């Protein structure tokens, strides 16, 4: 995906896009991490 994007856009733009994508994922994880948890133990001990 990264290489494909680099073939279409300048590399700094692709790096910026990736950075924004990772940052938004991290923010989402932090925002939602305190919600009631999925049952981990249902996967196995």
């Amino acid at each position, binding site marked *: 995906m990264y290489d494909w994007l680099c073939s279409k856009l300048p590399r700094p733009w692709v790096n910026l896009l990736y950075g924004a994508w*990772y940052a938004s*994922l*991290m923010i*989402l*994880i932090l925002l*939602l*991490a*305190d*919600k*009631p*948890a*999925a*049952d*981990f*133990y*249902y*996967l*196995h*001990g």
Partner: protein
Amino acid sequence: MSDQHFLLLLVMWSSLAVLLAWLLPARLQATAIAACGAGLLASVSVLSLLILAAYTGLSFLAHRHAPGRHAATVAGIAGAVAVLCCFMAAGGGSAGGIGEGVILPAGMAFYTLRLIHYLLESYKDNLRRHDFSEYLAYEFLPSTLPVGPIHRFDEFLRDLRRRRWDPVTFSGGMERILYGSAKLVVIGNYLVGQKLAIALSGTMAAPGIEGVYAAAVLFWIKLYVLFSGYSDIAIGFGALLGLRLRENFDWPFLARNIGEFWQRWHVSLASWCRDYVFTPTLSFTRSHGLAVVASMLVLGLWHELSLRYLLWGAYHGVGLVLFRMFADCAGPRIGLLPAAMRHAWRVLATLLTLHFVLFSFAVTSALERILLGN
């Protein structure tokens, strides 16, 4: 212990393992990885650590002092299986119980499969020379302790000895951990566990096939997202350590038949069953059907020691046998169909396989109720 708390512990101990494995001298790295796994286990349950450490010591002694001994291998495997079954039976059949009132030692279900693999490969003299710290690192690799993947010792040892710092692998591992965490927290927990569950709650309460269908869809989506999320985190931490762990999922719901489904769903468990149940049973009995059913029964009972999972294993085993019979009969004819018809058949086969899997628990629960007379 809550899910978030456990995830936090997993990430903390796995991160510490990564740090130590790159900073310490080479001779201490395997021990440091194992110590972090032991730390993770101890912070969940000291009893778990003691049991798994005792087993690890005993199995290494069996490998070192009784290599190729039939009795030692059989005793080791029988002991591990008996202990696992006892804990599962004490916990009402379920293998999931590292929370309150510790029933099953943390990670024991997966640990037992790795132990059997190690003992059998040792018996077959397939293991390269290794020391105790390398074996400890294999059994106590922190990220794979709770839910796998069930990696193999020879692959682990090769990667452990050859690993070199590689920024591309490292950043790939970081990305995998981020995606795994997002799967768990954003998709599995929030979107599926809360939003979709609320959206489907009315349908699930409806009597008849509609409610069963909605509940099955929710269950399998949640299971897939959570399990593949944990696998992503484990594989990602493996990459940070310079290890290539086995993949566990490969778009399983796009499988075109039930055989392909089991090559895409929980791959490390399915391949373990193929190597240590299917192949030996096939070589003893020369019956493909019996070997398939035996493998699926073991796979089912490993999840839970109950009639429901026995039936679930049998359901998949019979499904695999029937599919093979169908493929032997109709496979060549399907190949002769026009391209458009073949394409339509593939779509239909994918949908049939998906629904065979979706309804597996509903069908086997209904069968269980009939058999138990409820």
